[in-house]
């Protein structure tokens, strides 16, 4: 009941965002009435045609995997945004294993190995802000944010330097046999969400997380070992985001080029976790919704609208979802 109303309210927000976005565009003269009908028909296309639907499921992978891990971290009060860097590092790690090294593995072996490798690198990146918070009292929000830049520039160096495959700064592609399809992405995301939900609701770690997030002092007094819990949640969220990166490179990215800005899957994961009240199951539909926005943005761009305009519309939609949920009662997230 609460879940349904939450989803309904999110879609109400989308509607509000579209109305606000397009109405202001027309008023400002940046969109003609003909352009409006074109934009609306591409919206319809996104939700009704097979190819954008498949694309949206592929994009969902890294967002959903980041969000599911973050939902546990946020519940414990560990507010990291390192998922962005972890996704990028995970992509690079998986690419190195499958495309650069190419060990000639069985596809399943390659996937498992890439996931473990990317996930472990994500975990290590996740642990750094946790260690800095515990021993130096550094805010994990800032340190994880800064770490994202470190990762971005290291990967950019690798891509344009040692891993460059020809005249252009682009790496080799992941061989066809290792690539993942939309069914794989659905299965991986679903399995991760369910596993994390079980950890949260059934395990000792889940109890530690719930107590730590609400009453750190009670957690400490009764020996629930807050530090250990923070290490766990930071490495778990790092792991899933790292796997998210592997999934991205094995499904739709296939090769890497230097990035001038963050691709944003990890940041979207943070937003998704927050909007789904840090419930690892609810992060799935929310991630899919965000990835349809990505596809819709692509479609608008293809129809000739500038990237800046597309980003503006997307942002208005996201803000409207938050606003709409707020005014229709209940929190924005963070139960």
């Amino acid at each position, binding site marked *: 009941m609460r879940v349904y109303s939450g989803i309904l309210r999110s879609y109400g927000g989308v509607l509000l965002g579209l109305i606000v976005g397009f109405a202001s565009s027309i008023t400002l003269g940046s969109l003609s009435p003909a352009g409006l009908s074109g934009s609306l028909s591409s919206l319809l296309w996104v939700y009704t045609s097979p190819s954008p639907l498949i694309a949206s499921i592929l994009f969902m992978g890294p967002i959903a995997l980041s969000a599911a891990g973050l939902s546990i971290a946020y519940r414990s009060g560990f507010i990291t945004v390192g998922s962005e860097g972890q996704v990028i590092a995970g992509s690079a790690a998986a690419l190195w294993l499958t495309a650069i090294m190419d060990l000639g593995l069985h596809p399943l072996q390659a996937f498992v190995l890439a996931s473990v490798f990317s996930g472990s690198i994500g975990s290590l990146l996740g642990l750094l802000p946790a260690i800095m918070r515990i021993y130096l009292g550094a805010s994990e929000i800032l340190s994880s944010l800064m770490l994202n830049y470190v990762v971005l520039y290291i990967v950019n160096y690798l891509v344009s330097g040692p891993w460059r495959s020809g005249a252009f700064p682009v790496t080799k592609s992941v061989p066809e046999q290792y690539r993942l399809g939309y069914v794989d992405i659905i299965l991986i995301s679903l399995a991760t969400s369910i596993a994390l939900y079980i950890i949260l609701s059934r*395990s*000792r770690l889940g*109890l530690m997380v719930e107590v730590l997030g609400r*009453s750190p*002092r009670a957690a400490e*007094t*009764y*020996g629930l070992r807050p530090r250990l819990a923070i290490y766990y949640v930071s490495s778990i969220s790092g792991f899933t985001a790292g796997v998210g990166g592997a999934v991205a490179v094995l499904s739709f990215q296939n090769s890497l080029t230097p990035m001038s800005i963050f691709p944003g899957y990890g940041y979207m994961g943070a937003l998704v976790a927050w909007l789904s009240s840090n419930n690892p199951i609810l992060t799935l539909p929310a991630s899919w919704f965000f990835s349809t926005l990505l596809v819709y943005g692509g479609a608008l761009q293809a129809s000739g609208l500038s990237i800046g305009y597309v980003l503006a519309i997307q942002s208005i939609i996201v803000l409207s979802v938050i606003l709409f949920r707020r005014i229709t009662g209940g929190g924005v997230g963070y139960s």
Partner: protein
Amino acid sequence: MEALLELKGVSVIYPSGVTAVSDASLKIYRGEVLALLGENGAGKTTLAKVISGVVRPSSGEIYIDGARRRLSSYRDAVGLGIYMVPQTPQLFGNLSVLEDLRLSLKLSGYRGVFRNAIEGFAGALRRLGAGFSIESRCSSLSMGERQKVEIAKAIILGRRLAIFDEPSVHLTPSESRSLGEIVRELARSGRSVIYITHKISEAMDIADRIAIMRGGRIAGIIEERGADFDTIVRLMFGDKPINDSQTRGFVEHSEIDPGGSVLEIRDLWVPGNHGGYSVRGVSLSIRAGEILGIAGIAGNGQRELFEVLSGLRKPARGSIILDGEDITNKGQDYRIRRGLSLVPEERLDWGLVPGLSIAMNIAISIEPRSRGFFIDWRSVDMIALEIINSVGVKARSTRDPVDILSGGNMQKLMVARELYRGPRVIVAMNPTGGLDIATARFVRRLITDYSRKAGALIISEDLDELIEICDRIAVMSRGSIRGLFTRPFDYDEIARSMIS
């Protein structure tokens, strides 16, 4: 007399289905002190929260100066000059006392001169005998000190109606007397006061009228001073048989021959929050089967002592020996596994976690001690049910969030949980703070019954309570033990050493 505020048929039903207040009608006149008297869980606090805008009634009407009003938030009420001192002080921990006051003044839309308000506030604090600076951080204050801040705030912000919810709980007898004088003065200057208490004598002393609540209803209103004690008791407890020992809360004390020491504290020095030492060279020894009380005025190092015993704070010097083993440098988890049980002063946020179910709150201190990755929630549920039933916690299911329980039920739940583990030593701080006679008596009985097999250290600001249940009482003042008393106790002698 004209009514300042009138409630007509107010009911409050919580989302869980629990009816906290049912069909309550009440008038509050200008310049009067109205006592709201009742047992824990009678609905007093909820009704006061309706008046102070914190809880919205499910039905019923509120009239202020004869006009119907909707109080839908704390700010609505404060804007109208209604301020409530909550039972557990709620200050912004990260702010200083002064900053907290400024913020409250701003939120309330205070139109006067801030400096005057601050002066009045500081004056009120002095009268209450507050020994801390208004520049202190709220989180560094003890419960008693925070309570004084809240009371002083009520004097400034409750321009028309000040509500005090069990204000004397964290105060010493002499501080309570100053509060009584302040309350009478407020009434003389034309303000109205609602004074919530579960103590009959307190209500009779302070109030012009007494409204008695039972089971969410207004059971009766005593309109005149000098009412008959028995009538009040009957209204409060209904037809339940009340004998003398129950109202006086007497617990039989058996003479047990104490065994070897289960908890030993040797020359303990603990750094305080403001530099210096809060605990200065404390040495104590508790034997199995013994209850040792620590008496003292709040803010004399008791809280720091509790924190150091629980492992939350590191001592600078000295050692703590539990059952023959030095645990001074051991973590909380280890201490609990070795048989230490803790009953902290603040129920919610420390002893219990708000927002989590009763079962999860039981699991907090019981389940982490077992092994394996998964928690066996079925067995936790059974333990929770057993605990609920054994101490009579009023809850419909172990899945209910712990927040909806009344203060008394929360305390029973927490104490019973801590005893369920079969500890060697119980360390409790103000274990009956804010409880009505019957519940306080019940909680004391839980502890005294159990202490036959273990040792208990009870830190309490309620000297009567310590005298009732302890074998020995140590008085703590400015961080040191000023005296160690044994039965039979001399009340006056102990009280004198508390202020020495």
